[in-house]
C-alpha cells in the first residue's frame, strides 16, 4: 500500500463534547450520545466514519475508535454504540461503568476508512454483532438519497440483537436477521449470486466473517473494488519489551497491557495516528534496527513489508527480542 498522507499533528482535530444521553440497548451494548460543549453544530460526517474517544481512566489515557452510528444529516449530536468487552483492555468497560450523563469528554473529528462507494448501483450490507454500527449511518444516508440497499445481520440471539427491532420495523423488506442460537446463517453464496452489475458489498464484523466474505466474493468473480470491509483491531497484550526512539533519543519500555503507540505517547513523544486499529496507515513507523521478531497485526502493510522488518504499525503490532530502534 502507498504511504498515508502525514499530518502535522498527531490524530485528528478534537471536539469537546458532553455526554447527553446513555441508552442501554441490551446486556452488552449501550449507546452514548454527545453534544458539543461550545454549542456549535457538529461537522458533517460521511456514513461509515469513526471517531476516537479519549477516556481518562484514573490518569491513564485510553483512545478507542468507534463508528459514528447516528444520522449523518443530524449535526446536533453524534452517537456511538459500545459493546462491553469483559475480556478487553478496559476501554469499553470504562465507557459502560464510569461514564455518566453530563460528563465532559473529548472526541476527534470523524475519519472515514469505510465509506460508501456512491457509484454503486446497490449496496449489500453484511453485519456481524456490533458490526451493525456503521451501517446504521449508511442506511440513514441511503434512505435519504433513495439508494438501493439491503442488510443481512447476524446476531448471537434475539436478546443481543442490537437495533434489530428498530431496523426491522422501519425497513421490513430490506433487513434480514440471522440468529446464531437458532442455527441461522447468512447464505452468502446465494446472496452474491444474481446481484445486479455495480453492486457493492460491505462487511463489518469479526475477522473470520470479513475473510469469509472477501474469499467467497473473489471466488464468485466479484472485483476487489466492490467488496469493502472494516475491522478495528484492539491492541493485544504481550510480553513487555524495550524500544529506542532514535529521533527523540530516548529508550522506552512497552508494558504488557499497553500498545507500542501508547507507550510512545506516555513517554511524551508525539506520534501520528488516526484509527489506532491497524487500518488507516497513519502511524506507520520506520524500523532503524531490529534484532528479534515482529508480531505484525495490522491490515495496512502488505506481506512483503511485514517480512522486510523495515516498518511497523505501533498501534497494534509488537516486538519480541533484544533490540528495536525506531525512527521516531
Amino acid at each position, binding site marked *: 500500500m502507498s504511504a498515508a498522507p502525514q499530518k502535522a499533528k498527531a490524530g485528528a482535530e478534537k471536539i469537546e463534547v458532553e455526554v447527553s444521553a446513555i441508552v442501554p440497548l441490551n446486556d452488552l451494548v449501550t449507546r452514548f450520545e454527545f453534544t458539543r460543549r461550545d454549542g456549535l453544530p457538529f461537522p458533517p460526517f460521511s456514513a461509515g466514519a469513526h471517531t476516537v474517544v479519549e477516556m481518562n481512566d484514573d490518569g491513564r489515557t485510553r483512545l478507542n475508535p468507534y463508528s459514528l452510528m447516528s444520522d449523518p444529516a443530524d449535526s446536533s449530536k453524534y452517537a456511538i454504540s459500545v459493546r462491553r468487552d469483559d475480556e478487553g483492555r478496559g476501554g469499553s468497560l470504562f465507557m459502560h461503568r464510569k461514564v455518566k450523563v453530563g460528563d465532559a469528554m473529548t472526541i476527534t473529528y470523524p475519519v472515514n476508512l469505510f465509506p460508501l462507494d456512491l457509484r454503486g448501483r446497490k449496496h449489500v450490507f453484511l453485519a456481524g454483532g456490533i458490526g451493525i454500527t456503521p451501517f446504521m449511518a449508511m442506511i440513514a444516508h441511503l434512505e435519504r438519497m433513495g439508494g438501493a440497499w439491503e442488510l443481512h445481520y447476524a446476531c448471537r440471539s434475539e436478546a443481543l440483537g442490537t437495533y434489530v427491532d428498530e431496523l426491522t420495523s422501519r425497513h421490513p423488506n430490506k433487513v434480514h436477521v440471522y440468529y446464531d442460537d437458532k442455527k441461522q446463517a447468512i447464505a452468502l453464496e446465494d446472496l452474491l449470486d444474481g*446481484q445486479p452489475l*455495480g453492486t457493492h458489498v460491505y462487511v463489518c464484523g469479526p475477522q473470520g466473517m470479513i475473510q469469509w466474505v472477501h474469499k467467497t466474493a473473489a471466488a464468485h*468473480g466479484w472485483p*476487489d473494488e466492490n467488496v469493502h470491509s472494516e475491522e478495528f483491531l484492539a491492541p493485544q497484550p504481550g510480553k513487555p519489551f524495550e524500544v529506542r526512539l532514535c529521533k527523540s533519543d530516548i529508550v522506552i519500555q512497552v508494558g504488557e497491557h499497553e500498545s507500542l503507540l501508547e507507550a510512545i505517547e506516555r513517554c511524551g513523544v508525539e506520534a501520528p495516528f488516526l484509527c489506532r486499529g491497524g487500518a488507516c496507515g497513519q502511524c506507520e513507523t520506520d524500523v532503524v534496527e531490529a534484532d528479534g521478531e515482529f508480531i505484525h497485526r495490522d491490515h495496512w502493510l502488505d506481506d512483503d513489508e511485514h517480512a522486510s522488518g523495515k516498518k511497523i504499525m505501533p498501534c497494534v503490532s509488537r516486538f519480541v527480542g533484544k533490540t528495536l530502534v525506531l525512527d521516531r
Partner: protein
Amino acid sequence: MSKFQFPESIRSRPVYGTLEPRPGKAHLMIADAEGAEALLDLAAQDASIFRAAHIIYIPKATGETYVDRLKALEPAQFYVGPTYEASVQRIRRVLSDAHMGLQVYLTGTEGLMGQAQNEAMTAGIPHSAIQTEHRGSVARRMQCVHCKGITEDVMTDPFVCSHCGLNLFVRDHYSRRLAAFQGVRVDAEDPGNVPEPVELYK
C-alpha cells in the same frame, strides 16, 4: 505477430495487460481483428471458461481468418458483427442483463477496447476490474479538441480531422469517458505550416 509494445508515455495513456482466466459466473469477451489471437491464447490457459462465455467479435480486415478457430472454442454464445457500431446494441443488452460475477475481457485495437470498456463502466464495473490486451493495429480513435468530432483508425501524425478538416497533432492525452485520444491543431500559430505526416510508431 499481433503484439506491439507501446513505448512508455504520460500517465493519461492507457496501459494494456495480458488476458488471464479469472473465476466468474459468466465471461463476456469482446474482440476485433487480431484480438482473436488473444482469445485463442486465453483458451490455451483455460478452455473451460468458454462454456460460460459470450464472444462478440468484429473481424474488420481479418475477414474469416479467425472466425472458425473462435467458433471451435465452443463459447456459449458467439456473435460476429461487421463493425463496433453495429455490435454496440448487443453489448449494451448483454451488460444490462448481466449480474455480479461477470468477467469482461477486451482485446484488439485501442478504439474497440476503449469504447467497450466505457460500456462496461457505465454498466457498473470498475475500470480496474476489466481486463484488456492490445493486439493488431496501433491505429487510434482521435477526438478533435476543436470541433469534438471523432476520427477513427488514425494511422498518421498529423492527420486531417474527418469532421472540420483541421490538421491535428496526435497526442497521448487520453479520455476514458470518450474512449479517444486528443487531437490538437498543429498549425494554429502558423496556418498552413503542417509537417509531413508520419506513420504512428514508425
